[in-house]
């Protein structure tokens, strides 16, 4: 139950299966696109930084893979620009071998991770999966619906342990529904999610694919309906039992009613704003350019983006955000028609009833506390440290590090103590379980090769234990072969840093992990409280 709730914690709505690759090396790009397509991602490829930027203005990608050395606009600048323009998805950088300065610059520019080139497509795919998993915070490694199981790492679907034969698009659809169990996807939404710019079919194709998927699920012996049609809206994963659909608290009825009433008062002004944007686009299309008009249109879209979701028009907020970003480029003729499309869609959206189905709103679901996705606290030392770049007085974290290299352990001790972190080091895994209980660390650092046992096995064992399955685990390793990296992520590692690493890199990663862990814990705590109080009521 808690896992379902947490999987809804997204900062904003992204196309979960659609990725952007910005890479000018044609050979690598082609390999990657093929590999990612085989994993059922819809991949758009841009060959230079500026084209990459244009793509991001048209589609909300959940993850962008950026090469550092790009023509026109380099990867780090593009990364900075994206972050500056509120891009909240993950950014993975591809850096040249041994260029530590680039790694640090990249991470500081807002990248979430990097892979050193030349890299294998396997490693890159594992990194992408890990980042997507992290965005889903505590999202499960395996997605399930009753006895139906989908393992995204190997793209396998099983029912009662029998492997299902499903078409690639059917698989992608199923993964999407399983990832967002309470979300209703319209057909146009599914098109945007799962098909890239190069193969845009029409809505009847979606219908055909859904039909085929249903047949395939039925053929596998699943009697119940898995994908439900929501009339007038689209499709969603059928809730399995009442426990899957959380009950709204008592008070929410009245807040909802009030919201509906307020909507009646503000609907017309909102529509006026939309008309204004429409007129601005028309003016630009007619060739009359005015910076004032452009910025006013952008402003109007900004207001709509910030407000519509409060009234249940989640899709409306998303479209408005697209329009807001698009308005920065009103001078670009080929974007104008795209903008017009969004405005039309937004019109339709506002004229229909708001979504009362629990869906994601700016990333939050209306029936869970959705706390951490659009609330950002300023007071934690970790965040202060990351933002200001200064060292916090204390981070008050306890770290347990296991590595057979005493020199490295000593180095860690020096690095982390400067940040106020307490470190317990072990050269072998012998005392590990005892220390885990006794020291109760906030984060564990492991090496792949430990004397007497494998760090990966140890990681796996930690994940099997209920007490520690959420504990952040970070690997430090000189291993760069993709199999090992794949194995450690599969064993449940949260992050991996290749040796040698720099201090800022290590500290940033640790702070990030701690902060994420804190937010997840905070959320599940509140969620449990809510569930308890509901149960009592």
């Amino acid at each position: 139950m808690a896992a379902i709730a947490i999987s809804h914690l997204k900062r904003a709505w992204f196309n979960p299966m659609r990725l952007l690759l910005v890479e000018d090396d044609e050979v690598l790009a082609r390999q990657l696109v093929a590999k990612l397509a085989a994993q059922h991602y819809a991949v758009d490829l841009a060959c230079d930084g500026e084209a990459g930027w244009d793509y991001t203005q048209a589609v909300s990608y959940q993850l962008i893979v950026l090469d550092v050395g790009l023509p026109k606009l380099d990867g780090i600048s593009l990364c900075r620009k994206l972050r500056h323009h509120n891009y909240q998805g993950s950014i993975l950088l591809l850096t040249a071998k041994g260029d530590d300065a680039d790694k640090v610059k990249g991470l500081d520019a807002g990248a979430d991770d990097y892979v050193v080139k030349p890299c294998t497509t396997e490693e890159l795919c594992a990194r992408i999966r890990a980042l997507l998993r992290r965005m889903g915070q505590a999202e499960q490694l395996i997605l399930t619906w009753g006895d139906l199981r989908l393992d995204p790492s190997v793209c396998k679907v099983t029912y009662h342990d029998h492997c299902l034969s499903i078409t690639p698009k059917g698989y992608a659809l199923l993964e999407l529904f399983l990832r967002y169990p309470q979300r209703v996807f319209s057909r146009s939404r599914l098109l945007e999610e799962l098909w890239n710019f190069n193969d845009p079919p029409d809505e009847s194709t979606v219908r055909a694919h859904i039909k085929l998927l249903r047949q395939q699920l039925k053929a596998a012996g699943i009697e119940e309906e898995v994908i439900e049609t929501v009339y007038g809206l689209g499709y969603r994963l059928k809730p399995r039992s009442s426990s899957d659909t959380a009950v709204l608290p008592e008070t929410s009825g009245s807040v909802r009613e009030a919201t509906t009433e307020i909507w009646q008062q503000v609907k017309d002004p909102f529509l006026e704003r939309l008309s204004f944007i429409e007129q601005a686009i028309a003016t630009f299309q007619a060739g009359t350019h005015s910076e004032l008009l452009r910025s006013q249109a952008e402003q109007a879209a900004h207001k709509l983006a910030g407000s519509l979701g409060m009234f249940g028009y989640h899709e409306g907020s998303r479209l408005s955000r697209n329009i807001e970003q698009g308005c920065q480029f009103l001078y670009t003729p080929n974007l104008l028609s795209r903008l017009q499309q969004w405005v039309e869609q937004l019109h339709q959206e506002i004229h229909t009833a708001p979504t009362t189905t629990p869906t994601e709103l700016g990333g939050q679901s209306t029936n869970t506390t959705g706390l951490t996705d659009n609330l950002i606290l300023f007071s934690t030392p970790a965040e202060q440290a990351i933002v200001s770049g200064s060292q916090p007085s204390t981070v008050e974290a306890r770290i347990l590090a296991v590595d057979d290299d005493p020199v490295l352990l000593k180095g860690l001790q020096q690095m982390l103590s400067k940040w106020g972190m307490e470190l317990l080091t072990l050269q072998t895994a012998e005392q590990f379980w005892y220390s885990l209980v006794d020291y109760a660390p906030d984060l564990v650092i492991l090496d792949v090769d430990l004397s007497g046992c494998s760090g990966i096995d140890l990681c796996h064992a930690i994940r099997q234990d209920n007490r520690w399955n959420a504990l952040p685990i970070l690997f430090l390793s000189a291993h760069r072969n993709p199999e090992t990296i794949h194995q450690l992520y599969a064993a449940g590692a949260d992050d991996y840093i290749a040796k040698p690493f720099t201090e800022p890199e290590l500290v940033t990663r640790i702070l990030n992990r701690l902060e994420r862990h804190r937010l997840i814990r905070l959320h599940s705590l509140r969620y449990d409280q809510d569930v308890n109080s509901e149960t009592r009521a």
Partner: protein
Amino acid sequence: MSTKRILVIDDEFAVLKIIEASLKLTRQWEVLVAESGKEGLAIAQTELLNAILLDVMMPGMNALAILKELQQSPRTQAIPVILLTATVEIARQPEYVQSGAKAVVIKPFDPEVLPVQIETALGWNS
């Protein structure tokens, strides 16, 4: 739960109304509203408040200037402030992070969740 008095400063009518409904109906808190920074500062000087929700992007006085004024006045400097913005980037910008505000709530927020977010940000739930 003790009653709180919250001031909301936002130039958007819809936002003021929604926050008012949300906090009143779910928590029975008292909500005061201001449509501009100037008006907000005047209310803050004369009313006893438990917290202020402040929109970042308003015409006229900007949020940083309002925060600064609140901090300079002995009467208002202890009132915790939560920023509201539809611009996520605000949460990364040092001038906001170090502005003395406690947290940022990104719009659109869920009116049913907002009260919990305020409680979390201000430590009112422990």
